[in-house]
């Protein structure tokens, strides 16, 4: 294989409902840096099941946008998506392919990599162009305990990139709009039939600016209301440790941690959570971490900015009251 035949950075965009998933804008931010470092161009491919205005991808830095629009993409399915993207990649030969590490991205990218017989680095948190011109891919492994630096010997070099790890590329209103429509290569779902797509009304905890999280210190489901009241006063949302999900007291959609959601809110308030490594993996990058726990030796205090040793049943309502009172005073 001649590596020189492969040029440019290709970002794979993803649709969520009727809009482009914002991870694409983050990939364009990082992609632009890589393109500049490598002296290459930045393009973006979007598969969509409906008429979509893709110009924002140009305005956010893609030199060239390719849109594959067909009703067959309205129902996301990895084999069909992978086959089309792989055909496109075989034709255009990008050196680097970046995909958002969303559920879809993490399920789709390995199919593509296997079809192309190339390497794929999962869930990257940093990407650089190394001195030899290759992509240096940095990713957490071992349950977020280490960072591995990985290089790919083949082309394209493929990576999925964590959502909300990078900022979004800024809108540049005057940018040239270059959009090319590409026909799908295949349209049939093979051996797969999508019966139903159910929109979930679940709140997206990863969007919350304030998370009030409860752990095993909460004794029964109703008591989560105490945390809800504090969250309401702060305009935030309630999250939980896995212990409460396993106990059937909370939905897994609000679980924080390694096997749940990763959150980075402005403020994280951990109530009755011990601070197990798998929990920390989901919240340790929050701006401000506050802990309430009745065990002074709980590990959560070590990674908190501020902590209070006490019974959450006593402390949490007092916090709610104090913050609500503050609001009352402001309203007056």
């Amino acid at each position: 294989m001649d590596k020189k035949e492969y040029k440019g950075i290709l970002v794979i965009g993803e649709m969520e409902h009727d809009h482009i998933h914002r991870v694409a804008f983050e990939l364009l931010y990082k992609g632009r840096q890589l393109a500049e470092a490598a002296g290459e161009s930045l393009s973006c491919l979007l598969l969509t099941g409906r008429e979509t205005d893709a110009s924002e991808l140009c305005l956010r830095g893609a030199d060239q946008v390719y849109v594959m629009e067909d009703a067959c993409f309205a129902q996301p399915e990895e084999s069909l998506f992978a086959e089309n993207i792989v055909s496109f990649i075989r034709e255009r030969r990008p050196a680097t392919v970046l995909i958002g590490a969303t559920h879809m991205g993490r399920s789709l990218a390995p199919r593509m990599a296997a079809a192309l017989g190339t390497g794929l680095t999962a869930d990257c948190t940093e990407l650089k162009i190394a001195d030899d011109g290759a992509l240096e891919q940095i990713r957490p492994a071992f349950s977020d305990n280490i960072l591995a630096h990985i290089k790919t010997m083949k082309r394209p070099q493929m990576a999925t990139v964590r959502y909300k790890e990078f900022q979004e590329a800024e809108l540049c209103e005057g940018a040239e709009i270059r959009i090319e429509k590409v026909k799908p290569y295949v349209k049939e779902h093979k051996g797969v039939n999508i019966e139903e797509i159910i929109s979930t009304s679940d709140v997206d905890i990863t969007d919350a600016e304030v998370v009030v999280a409860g752990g095993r210190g909460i004794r029964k489901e109703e008591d989560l209301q105490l945390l809800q009241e504090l969250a309401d006063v702060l305009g935030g949302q309630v999250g939980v440790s896995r212990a409460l999900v396993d106990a059937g007291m909370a939905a897994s959609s609000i679980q924080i941690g390694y096997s749940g959601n990763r959150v980075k809110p402005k403020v994280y308030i951990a109530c009755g959570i011990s601070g197990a490594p798998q929990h920390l993996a989901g919240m340790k990058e929050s701006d401000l971490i506050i802990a309430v726990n009745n065990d002074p030796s709980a590990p959560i205090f070590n990674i908190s900015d501020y902590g209070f040793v006490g019974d959450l049943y006593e402390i949490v309502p007092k916090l709610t009251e104090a913050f609500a009172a503050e609001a009352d005073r402001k309203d007056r």
Partner: protein
Amino acid sequence: MNILVLIKEVPDMEKVRFDSERGVVDRSSAPAEINPFDESALQAALELKRKYGAHVTAMTMGPPRAEKTLQDAYARGADEGVLLTDRAFGGSDTIATSRALSAAIAAGDYDLILCGEKSVDGDTAQVGAETAELLGIPHAYYADSIEMADERTVRVSIENLCGSRQIRTMTLPALVGVTKNIGKLQLPTVDRKLGSLTIAVHKIGLSDLPALSKEDTGFAGSPTKVAGIEVPKAVERESRVFREDLPDFIDLLKKELTERGVRVG
């Protein structure tokens, strides 16, 4: 129905030590166990067996000692264990692993292949989908329920794909990656545990897989190379812990919240 569960042997993350000075993982510091996410895959297989009747095989690729992990899978209810082990498989990245697994799967007769959401050490969530692609069969990830739609069709519920839950059917053979929400594996019974010590685990090496060439697996067949690892030190926080003076604590929080633009109230 023949169900295959892909199981990885991983170090116990509670015990494994990371040396941030030297940037190494000390695998010898911790005992090996079944990847926790693969326990859920095994649980899903046992549940399907109970409902529809099935033969459940656990397969792992790893060093010879991974036989113990397969014995554990037997103790937890698997009917049979297959161990892919060969010097030539050493140093495999995800694609090289998937090539070996898919060659062994193709040589067998499996209808449904189950895997975990991810492994707690490799942490890529790639091996399942890569294996499916190499086998040329459909897959679904993030499934929290599986049922048979008819004898040759499986129906899965995918927790989240592009922002929605998706119900999909797939013609067998197919691969399904499950989340932990599908169910918790029970502990082994004493009988099964005793029985597991004497079961014969079927071993497969490179020479048993004519479809797999040496260049495609192991270190040589791995397009990704680890250039280095770092063990980052935990971010230091101020850790100001109060035991009394709740009013002071509250005042401090008010100040910090306001500074961060959090609406108090």
